[in-house]
């Protein structure tokens, strides 16, 4: 059991400027009162996109020219705060298939990987240039090559990075980890038999 191999993501992009955008901004807690993730995308950045009467506010995601975007361009420490997977689920449900940024909060990036959403990092200067390029022309198609960790847009090429383990997971489809983890059933049971706290502290282990 594993997910699809993810080699390349292609689509339009939208720049979302700012550091430290937390998961409470991405998906406010009140929209987590649900037992499923279905349809959660409509609450993405809700308080940024809508006022209290549910009328659209001025926000880049509300701009017609960026409505079709499937790649989000962000800055530093994107997705900090709560561990809620509701945030990447909302991004996915809304239509985002990859995020490019300067840095990502750790739990958030891990949650994205579990959904097969690549989180690619570019240096501060490169991400700013890329954001500017897209800001000027929203009709440019952007493609991310997972194998080379490059971003192609028009004639420009940006080299990015990603933890090797994330890259391997995406390329092999093993980002959907459950089958992989369960294939070590025997070793898991051995660990259960050997951990001191699961064995009344009788077992000795090398420390």
């Amino acid at each position, binding site marked *: 059991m594993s997910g699809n191999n993810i080699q390349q993501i292609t689509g339009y992009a939208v720049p979302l400027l700012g*550091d430290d955008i937390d998961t409470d901004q991405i998906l406010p807690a*009140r929209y987590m009162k649900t037992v499923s*993730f279905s349809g959660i995308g409509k609450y993405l950045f809700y308080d940024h996109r809508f006022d209290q009467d549910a009328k659209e506010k001025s926000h880049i995601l509300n701009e017609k020219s960026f409505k079709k975007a499937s790649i989000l361009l962000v800055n530093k420490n994107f997705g900090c705060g709560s*561990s809620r997977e509701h945030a990447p689920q909302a991004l996915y449900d809304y239509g985002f298939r990859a995020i490019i940024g300067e840095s990502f*909060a750790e739990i958030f990036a891990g949650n994205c990987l579990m959904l097969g959403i690549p989180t690619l990092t570019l240096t501060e200067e490169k991400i700013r240039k890329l954001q500017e390029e897209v800001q000027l022309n929203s009709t440019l198609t952007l493609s991310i090559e997972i194998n080379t960790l490059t971003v192609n847009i028009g004639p420009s090429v940006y080299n990015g990075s990603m933890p090797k383990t994330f890259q391997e997971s995406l390329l092999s489809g*093993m980002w959907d980890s459950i089958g992989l983890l369960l294939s*070590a059933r025997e070793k898991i049971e051995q660990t259960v038999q050997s951990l001191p706290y699961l064995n009344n502290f009788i077992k000795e282990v090398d420390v």
Partner: protein
Amino acid sequence: MSKNLFNTIWDQHTIRKLPTGQDQIFIGLHLIHEVTSPQAFQMLRDRNLSVLYPKQTFATIDHIVPTEHQKQRPYNDRQAETMAQAIERNTKDFGVTFFSIDSPRHGIVHVIGPELGLTQPGMTIACGDSHTSTHGAFGAIAMGIGTSQVRDVLASQCLALNRPKVRKIEIKGKPPKGIYAKDIILKIIADLTVKGGIGYAYEYSGQTIEYLSMEARMTICNMSIEGGARMGYINPDEKTFAYLQKKEYSPKNDAFERAKKYWLSIASKKDAEYDDITHIDIQDLAPRLTWGIHPGQGISIEENIPSPQAFSAKERNAVEHALTHMRFKSGETLRGKKIDVAFIGSCTNGRLSDLREAAKILKGNKISPSVRSIAVPGSQDIAHQAEEEGIADIFRQSGFQWREAGCSMCLAMNPDKLEGHQLCASTSNRNFIGRQGSPEGRTILMSPAMVAAAALAGEIVDIRKQEDSNHEWK
């Protein structure tokens, strides 16, 4: 050079290196709650999987429960009722122990784990909540996970993880009068920034940590994630063992003696290796508060709100945005700011020692009539002890609303919310925009004693000016 506690535990729990290069890590204790688990159980059903070791998972309900009349069902909020029913059904169907609202063991997930002795040194602990780092106070590797990972732990008792680096934060100095664990961690986050901990586990050590109570240590570890560190821990010592002795799920008698020996053996030694070491001296620390919209935007009560010009050009917009939201001006002091709401509670500061410190300030005094003041014990057991000790009455007599256990106003997934642009003095962990339930709401993070003092005065005051101020230096 020897291995630090983190790497010792990590290695012991490594099942194998995965083809992706990640480590497959066994999770010894899995805690779940109603918000991040229902989708995980659904994923199990969709894939026809069961829970591999149901005895290693414990459930509670904390985020959505009302803090008044919480045993009255169905809940007025239909979504909350649906979530309550989901966790009841899921834990029953999959054979997981559930500390329901009717159990005296019920409370906030990060409060009851330690309280019941489920949390122990040497464990790997995971929960679909970023404040799982709290449990690291016992010398465990404890981390927040997403819902697909909750599914992985339920099905396989394992996670696919990258090994983080370990940064030792050596803290020295005796906390001055009026200074608490909350002040220390807010200072650390302000110094190391909210992103400084990305890719790291934090080991808090040094003279200050040794002297702090277990409850104070939990407050420190709790907010590791606010500094970007997914995990934060403290090496186990005699205080840890004294806390765990005779807890319901702690090892008993001879086993406890064997456990102590083992727990000591895994603690980081003097020659332990780290990827990074940083030092902090809290000798002259003054009470800390946040002025902005993330926990790193903080100052001491003596300082003035910084000017955007004090930041680098690229940070200025964010600082201006924060000041606009908070309706504060640079150069102002926070002293004298009128507050609308006082909130004492949460997995950060909802334990008995927090309530005791606040009660010392409140005793014999009345809160300002203009401040809506709410105290929420972290668990039913804490609520019970607070009644026994007379603390609950002190809160009530001061004018505080004394509530039932839950996450309450920390994240407003329940009826406790800010309204409009109310300013809240809060013992919780996040001052993010909208966090306390109103998109215009404003949060200032501080210690329980500072919140109690602000509730009395109706405005932010310096706790050190209060006669009864005490601290956890025991």
